[in-house]
């Protein structure tokens, strides 16, 4: 390796037209070759709202994962949690882009992320709860990734929108890893020490009341997802708690007190400079 070569390449002028390198080498457009026109007969308002809701789940989850940055228990977890956050951020961007195409406003991803207030967000409430300890974050990730994986597997083959189907198909591979990562940690923590077992029991008790809400629109997935969760809790030597759900639905714009501060932080710079481009 010639070090002079590397220095030269760094000093080269930057071609302003080449915006794509910021995505990384080996970047493949997941929508390459997918017909992006809206199929005839589509209820566009419904499709746009659905893409937004799935995008909101992913954005709020990615924001919570970003809050783990520099606070994770080990460097391997820094890398893994960032990886999962980045996957979800990628899903957000594709889903928001599709919402903007479909709802006829032509809004870009940032309009949805930065210039809507909390009451316009449609994410499930489990995603917005504060991170808590590592046990809570892992338990939440296990639940959300198991649910989203089941949902995306189905969407990939059943939705009539080819773009949403392609986004879901790409997401399936990512979510399978998220679920595996969370399940492995749930087992380690459940089986580990007295303290980790106690923390896992507390986490399950805190997460369980928000699980019913996930199946408000997709009741048929509930048995499948709960079976996965029970399989993990069994392997971890824990019991899946039977608790009463917390009333309300994030999908109706009904949120906990935690969403407003999360969005205030997320939107602060963008809203301070509304005329700026980044």
């Amino acid at each position: 390796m010639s070090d002079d070569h590397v220095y030269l390449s760094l000093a080269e002028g930057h071609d302003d037209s080449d915006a794509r390198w910021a995505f990384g080498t080996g970047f493949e457009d997941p929508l390459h070759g997918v017909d992006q026109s809206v199929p005839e007969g589509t209820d566009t308002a419904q499709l746009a709202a659905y893409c937004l809701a799935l995008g909101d789940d992913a954005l709020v989850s990615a924001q919570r994962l970003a809050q783990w940055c520099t606070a994770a228990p080990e460097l391997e977890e820094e890398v893994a949690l960032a990886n999962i956050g980045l996957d979800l951020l990628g899903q957000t961007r594709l889903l928001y882009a599709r919402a903007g195409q479909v709802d006829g406003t032509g809004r870009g991803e940032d309009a949805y992320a930065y210039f809507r207030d909390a009451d316009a967000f449609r994410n499930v409430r489990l995603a917005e709860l504060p991170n808590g300890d590592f046990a809570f974050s892992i338990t939440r990730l296990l639940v959300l990734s198991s649910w989203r994986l089941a949902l995306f597997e189905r969407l990939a083959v059943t939705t009539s929108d080819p773009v949403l189907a392609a986004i879901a198909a790409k997401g399936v591979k990512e979510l399978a890893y998220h679920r595996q990562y969370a399940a492995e940690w749930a087992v380690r923590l459940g089986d580990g020490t007295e303290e980790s077992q106690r923390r896992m029991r507390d986490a399950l008790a805190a997460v369980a009341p928000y699980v019913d809400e996930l199946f408000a629109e997709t009741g048929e997935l509930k048995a499948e997802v709960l079976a996965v969760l029970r399989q993990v809790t069994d392997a971890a030597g824990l019991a899946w708690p039977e608790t009463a759900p917390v009333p309300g639905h994030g999908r109706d714009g009904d949120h906990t007190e935690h969403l407003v501060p999360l969005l205030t932080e997320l939107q602060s710079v963008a809203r301070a400079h509304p005329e700026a481009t980044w």
Partner: protein
Amino acid sequence: MTSTGTEASAADRDETRFEEQFDATIAKDQRIEPRDWMPDGYRKTLIRQIAQHAHSEIIGMQPEGDWITRAPSLRRKAILFAKVQDEAGHGLYLYSAAETLGADRAELTEALIEGRQKYSSIFNYPTPTFADVGVIGWFVDGAAICNQVPLCRCSYGPYARAMVRVCKEESFHQRQGFELLLTMMRGTDAQRAMVQDAVDRWWWPSLMMFGPPDDDSPNSARSMAWKIKRHSNDELRQRFVDMTVPQAAKLGVTLPDPELSWNEERGHHDFGTPDWSELQRVIKGDGPRNAERVSRRRAAHEEGAWVREAATAHAAKQAARTKQTEGAAA
């Protein structure tokens, strides 16, 4: 047990022969590998340098990591998140390289949070605006590249190989930082002012990243002889200035040094002298953010202890269960 004179002289002869082999490997520009004999000083110097480098990657996640949750577009959020993740990855490769020399990651982390080992003083400066993310990419990653590209030819194999990958990623980060600044300079007046302000704050600390001037750098000569270090601090600093000046012109920012000018005769830029007393103050722990950086690393490490203990306990239980199953089967 007492050793006889014959044994001692045989050991001395071995030692001399090993040392000759080591010197010959260095002279031929070949690599020293983990199982090769090496002088204690070489091992200690490398552990100190690699650990310090690893700590810098990990502490360096903080000043920029603070902006991931507030990045003003989803594209910038993804870029920054991925960059900070890369730094965690660099920390991992480097701690692994240190472990090939007999160091232990947990012990190195203890040394960091107890203040026994250092990290790059640049990360003790604050990041008050989003433009800092761009300027860190452009200056700090740029300076890191100047320092680290020659390390790809360092005499110690695992360190050199880790640096190849690190440099590729750092180069990518530098371009991303520069591209953010280009975009901001084409934006609003407030954005342009933000960029210039960040340039003003980071320029001198970035020049100090190359360490003290050559005539005041006590460990440099030995590291150069061992081919751990390939260029002097002042040579690298010059290289960084020469690389950065045309980029600043392209960007349309002013570097805050009235003495900066092209010297036709030398074929290099002349530039002013950094405030070395400031560098000494920051290294000694009196920089704007020293205490915060280390205490945050300590908090993450201590709060994560129960997780690491649980993983260890689970692994032990698993091993015992496997053994029991195998025992029953036998």
